[in-house]
């Protein structure tokens, strides 16, 4: 075994493997580049959907929409997740990274794959949408790029597991792995399932595109493809929940209310989240209702239970820590006096709230077998997942960047005022995108659709006027979100390349005062009335919205 070179982080005291650090940097930089590209495509899509602007011609619209999904949903998120995996294993466990050379191979494969698929889309022959449902066929290198990317990511997951084994062998930590690492491990386990499903379906599809396989069954494709497509969103959930825990730990010294409960909730993800392929198959032919009901509910909503538990334990852990610091007045002093000017905190908290209220509730409602009839393939669907993946995952990733830049890149944040406002601008923009797309979807507006006036169609038709208003507002909020994204990229790029080098301890903006470390276990010190109130409000909103949608459903034509 070659001796790894380490540095000791002066802020956290952690031993950082320099090879791991370099890989974290490379993956994070690639992620941010793809975020910038994909974000621009996203803005052009929203501006085209704004009827008064209608920016792109049809062929460019479908091309931009395909590229948008590919670059942000896949490349930005998975590259960043690889950085998170290396961080949560090597850095948090004080350990050398397993096979760093292979880490570069993985990175190279992912980068090559991502670029190849991007090229195939930009060539104009692969405007098949991110989902590429057969029998619609993309250029062969569209699939090939995706396969290379998936193989690279799979190798990186292997390195993560290898690092866990080394850390255990070399006893770089005592007891159990930290909760954040446990969450990252959850993400990595789901990632293996996901990427394997991707390979299982994309390899035959690629062979089909070069003429070796004669036929891909469209229903079978959807079933297996979504085992990748939806489960990969569960990698995101696990990763960003782990990041929530990490940020409150770094900023507040917060301990989980109960390790047992939080880890149990992650375990629910591992056991049940993979069933979610069914969410995309609720109005397909050929599948039984029993199959749909069991799978779409993750076996009686057990994975949803996991998220609901995190929804209490993340703010609860923060509240307990803040109260220990003395912010103990009333219901919400702990929240009022939180560091709202620190983008790592504000980004994390907005991510938590919006993931729950916008993405979480809408996802469960839309994933109800019968309610899906009034939502499938409408704009409600992208409205929902911009609430989860953008307001939830992307905002959480942005938030932790404000800690990673000083701690890993060892640069001070440039333009701190811009950084301070960034999560708000981006967060409010995304909230608008999510809400107004869901609104338009409720009015029936189709997703992936260039012209809602149907000017060239053989029949006359128009969506209700309110839908036009919704799409206009969606465009305005998309501009705001794009501005927030631009602020993020500006701050990150400027800090990484021109920020002042950090020497010694970093001020990461944690509130003053001693760390709030109580003795372990939730039974003695726990008092979280504010969190209970927040959770109560959430629960009431959830229940009401759920039954309102049953009411909407009961108004459509009877069918059986």
């Amino acid at each position, binding site marked *: 075994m070659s001796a790894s070179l380490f540095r000791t982080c002066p802020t956290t005291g952690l031993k950082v493997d320099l090879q791991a650090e370099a890989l974290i940097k490379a993956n994070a930089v690639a992620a941010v580049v793809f975020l910038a590209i994909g974000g621009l495509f996203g803005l052009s899509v929203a501006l085209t959907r704004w009827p008064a602007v209608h920016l792109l011609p*049809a062929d460019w619209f479908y091309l931009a929409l395909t590229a948008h999904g590919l670059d942000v949903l896949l490349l930005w998120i998975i590259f960043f997740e690889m950085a998170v995996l290396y961080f949560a294993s090597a850095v948090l466990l004080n350990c050398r990274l397993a096979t760093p050379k292979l880490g570069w191979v993985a990175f190279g494969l992912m980068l090559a794959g991502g670029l190849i698929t991007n090229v195939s889309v930009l060539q104009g022959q692969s405007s098949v949408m991110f989902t590429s449902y057969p029998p619609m066929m993309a250029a062969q290198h569209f699939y090939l790029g995706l396969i290379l990317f998936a193989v690279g990511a799979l190798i990186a997951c292997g390195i993560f597991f290898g690092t866990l084994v080394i850390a255990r062998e070399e006893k770089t930590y005592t007891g159990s792995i930290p*909760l954040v690492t446990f969450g990252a491990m959850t993400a990595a386990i789901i990632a293996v399932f996901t990427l394997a499903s991707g390979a299982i379906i994309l390899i035959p599809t690629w062979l089909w595109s070069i003429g070796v396989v004669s036929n891909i069954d*469209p229903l079978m494709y959807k079933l297996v493809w979504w085992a990748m497509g939806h489960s990969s969103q569960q990698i995101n959930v696990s990763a960003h929940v782990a990041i929530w825990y990490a940020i409150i730990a770094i900023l507040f*010294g917060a301990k989980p209310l*109960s390790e047992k409960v939080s880890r149990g909730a992650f375990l629910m993800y591992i056991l049940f989240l993979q069933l979610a392929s069914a969410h995309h198959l609720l109005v397909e032919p050929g599948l039984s209702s029993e199959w749909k009901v069991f799978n779409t509910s993750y076996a009686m909503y057990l994975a949803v239970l996991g998220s609901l538990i995190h929804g209490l334990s993340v703010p609860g852990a923060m509240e307990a820590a803040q109260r220990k610091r003395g912010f103990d007045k009333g219901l919400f002093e702990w929240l009022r006096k939180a560091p709202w000017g620190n983008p790592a905190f504000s980004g994390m908290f907005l991510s938590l709230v919006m993931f729950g209220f916008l993405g979480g509730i809408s996802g469960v409602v839309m994933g109800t077998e019968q309610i899906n009839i009034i939502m499938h393939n409408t704009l409600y669907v992208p409205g929902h997942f911009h609430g989860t993946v953008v307001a939830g995952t992307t905002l959480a990733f942005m938030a932790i960047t404000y800690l990673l830049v000083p701690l890993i890149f060892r640069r001070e944040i440039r333009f701190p005022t811009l950084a301070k406002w960034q999560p708000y601008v981006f967060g409010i923009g995304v909230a608008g995108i999510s809400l107004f797309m869901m609104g338009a979807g409720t009015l029936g507006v189709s997703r992936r659709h260039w012209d809602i006036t149907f000017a060239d169609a053989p029949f006359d038709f128009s969506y209700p006027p309110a839908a036009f208003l919704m799409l206009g507002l969606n465009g305005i909020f998309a501009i705001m979100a794009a501005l927030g994204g631009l602020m993020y990229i500006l701050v990150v790029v400027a800090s990484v390349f021109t920020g002042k080098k950090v020497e010694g301890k970093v001020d990461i903006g944690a509130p003053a005062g001693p760390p709030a470390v109580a003795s372990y276990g939730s039974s003695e010190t726990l008092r979280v009335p504010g969190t209970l109130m927040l959770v109560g409000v959430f629960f009431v909103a959830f229940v009401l919205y759920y039954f309102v949608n049953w009411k909407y459903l009961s108004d*459509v034509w009877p069918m059986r």
Partner: protein
Amino acid sequence: MAITSPSERLWWKTPLHRVELIWILVAFFWGLVMFFMMIYWHAAGSQNLSTETYKTTPNEFYAKVEAMIGEHKVREAEGQPVVRPPPGADVYMVGRMWLWYPVLEFEKGQSYRLHLSALDLQHGFSLQPVNINVQVHPGYEHVLTITPDQSGEFTIVCNEFCGLGHHTMLGKIFVTE
């Protein structure tokens, strides 16, 4: 802290606080409610998607569409045949690039067995402004029994991307009193 190993080695033996326990029970119970709500709706609700499905081929299905048009065509609308099948009949509608074919005319309050399939790519059957959305696959024949309970002119939008003309793909269903 969450970024360090648990301070208690036997963390799985620590007691559960009442607040967490109550929330877990409430959330679990709510999950059960949502689960059984779907099953309840199968028994008591009027909007359940049929699972009746047959394997077919584009040619075979298209022949059925043509036969139905030959039998029940009543007029044309925008150059497309309008078919008025008798109540309770098997009705065939096909999605293709880029039209829902043919135009159908139903009688309010009557039930029809609507067979859906696609000729070329996947299409999305999105009935507006009712807002019923069903995915349509080539090679699969999906049979829904629908009962229009409103009269008027209804439009079928294609809501699955099906190539450059996707946004021009419409169809019509008329419902008469």
